[in-house]
């Protein structure tokens, strides 16, 4: 069986670092791993998706509709966009932060109301105010690692393995802050 984790957010929210930490973790468990990243145009504030797949042998680097075990979402609207990727009993972990896309800023469209409720209706959904926790850890930039902490609690890997993966992936300068962010995410109980 292949495990599938999808990470979604807005360009600049650190989806790349997140998938790389996950990749390092899974590798340390002796699994085959494929990650698919986004570089280029959408990194400029567009919707960004990265895929993490692992198991005995992974072929495609992409997760498709109905395949994801977890969707880790750094923004509400992006979470909503990714819901259909979850398998029926998959789990959505969503940072409740809202970032308005340009069509909303220009007034061409409205930011949808009641997104969290519609997501909760569709699938198991954990809502997290990761922004506050990130700020508590030292920077709004750590939203991604807070969310990783929330995910860690759902998965079976040891906290040690996660910490190790963070240490090998995150630059020294930001390590303390990110470890704190991870710990806050891990403690967070959304249910």
């Amino acid at each position: 069986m292949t495990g599938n984790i999808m990470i979604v957010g807005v360009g600049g929210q650190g989806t790349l670092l997140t998938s790389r930490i996950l990749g390092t973790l899974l590798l340390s468990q002796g699994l085959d791993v494929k990650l698919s990243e986004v570089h280029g145009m959408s990194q400029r504030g567009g919707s960004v998706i990265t895929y993490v797949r692992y198991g005995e042998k992974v072929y495609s680097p992409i997760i498709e509709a109905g395949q994801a075990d977890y969707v880790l979402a750094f923004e509400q609207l992006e979470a909503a966009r990714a819901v259909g990727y979850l398998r029926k009993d998959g789990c959505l972990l969503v940072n409740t932060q809202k970032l308005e896309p340009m069509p909303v800023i220009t007034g061409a469209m409205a930011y949808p109301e009641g997104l969290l409720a519609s997501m909760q209706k569709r699938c198991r959904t954990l809502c997290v105010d990761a922004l506050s926790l990130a700020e508590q850890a030292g920077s709004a930039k750590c939203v991604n690692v807070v969310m990783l902490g929330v995910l860690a609690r759902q998965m079976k890997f040891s906290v040690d393995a996660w910490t190790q993966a963070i240490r090998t992936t995150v630059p020294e300068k930001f390590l303390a802050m990110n470890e704190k962010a991870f710990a806050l995410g891990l403690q967070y109980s959304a249910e």
Partner: protein
Amino acid sequence: MKELLLGNAAVARGAYEAGVRVVSSYPGTPSTEITENMVRYADVDVEWAPNEKVAAEVAIGASLANARAMSCMKHVGLNVMADPVFTASYLAPPGGLVFCVADDPGMHSSQNEQDSRHYARASKILMLEPSDAAECKAFTKEAFSLSETFHTPVFVRLSTRVSHSQALVSLEEPEVRQPAPYVKDATRVAVPVNSRKMHIAVEKRLEDLRAFAEDCALNRVERHGSRIGVITSGISYMYAREALGDAVDYLKLGMVYPLPSRLIQDFAKGLDKVYVIEELDPYLEEHCRTLGIPVIGKEAFSLIGEYNADMIAQAVLGKPLAKEKTEPMEALPVRPPVMCAGCPHRGVFYVLHKMGLHVAGDIGCYTLGANAPLNSMDFNVCMGASIGTAFGMVKAQGRAFGQKVVSVIGDSTFIHSGITGLIDIVYNRGNNTVLILDNSTTGMTGHQDNPTTGKTIRGVPTKQVDLELLCRAIGVDRISIVDPFQVKELEKTLREELQADEPSVIIVQRPCALLKGVRYEGRYQVTDDCRRCGQCMKLGCPAITRKDGIVSISPIQCIGCGLCANVCPFGAIVKEGSR
């Protein structure tokens, strides 16, 4: 040792292990990280060239002087370098010579969706196509040795999902190579008398390669005892494996030019159905048809965009990949890419929009000026084209149109291929106005240095092209330098330069807000003086939002550039703590 590597990093690793000595490229998504990763290897001479043509020429020269050399580019970059590449095919220089070309099916970051495999056939150059990072390394290494064995340059074709996916790659020791001393060989002067002979050698080489393709390990048959076969290559193989598993037989082609006709025929023999699964054009499919094999190709699969496992499962097995999905959510607002908060291009497009000018566009972060609310780009074509196209428009519409149209072009793009267009305007007595948006970097592709930034790819200080002197040297007499955040001054300069009946260049200078060392102090906020005129909303800044008519600036998104304060007619936007 095994490491999780990006496909592009694995290409770089493969080149390193093969003892590559020279790498010259021009950035372009999804190929950029290959060359960026070469920087890890201290002994390799790696550079950003001003454009792909020069990059290819440097690699060809290095190969002529007996070194292993590589050049990497995105698919449209191959158009730019096609001229030297086609003749390099004839010259067959002695050092292993590899061109890595990364296609972008689905156009994640490109202006078109061309299929580079046609180039292999057209230029008669061997082409390999890896399916994941492990093969990226292995095939790149193999490419160097095939290049030397068969006296041919070699293409490695990548695509976005191969270039930008990470997979496990085993690392090996690099070969240590010293280029043999250079010896002149005048039969390589490509004049007709020599080229006629070289062409004969090229055709002979292709025959040898066709024979080699029949049983080389790069092409692999996987039998699972099925009545259905799939012929595929590259990332499509991975999608097919995912979708069909062991339910079908596979012919996985790692070498996509020239193709192994006998192997294909043998594979198809005895099968009830053979599918050809390939992104984008029916390239393998057409070859199969010329062999008389009734394959199923584009009648079942799209000519457009990326494939996926679900699409293949539906087409071949008649059922979807996933049994039960969570119900998707519909009609959500899209989130297109935008200029970042603090982007210097924003001021330019605000002014161009306000003045209602026609804008001949180019390729870079500033192409985002085409989107709402800035809406100020009429079209774009390819890198450098903003200048020639605007000149053509003036020729078509008459000289007075020169007062209504501007070209916008970034610093890297101007050096890449904009300068020649400007020379045309000067030489042929035009009156166009060109804005060079100098943000001190190659932004769109992830901040590479270029000849205008004063640093090499390794960060070593070097000479810096002086854009003003350069324009002056080619005969532009009217040159101004303006800060894009001084919108009034920019507008005034534009009015003057558009009026002038001669070529003008406006160099709009301010560094990209994402560059190291660019720091703005504080954040901005909206005060009670706001009259809700909405002028600041015309900037399309992701930090500025309006709810029920009330404008606010997100303290998280604002980086403190102050452009909004410059455009507010009522002084209602101020720096936090300044009052």
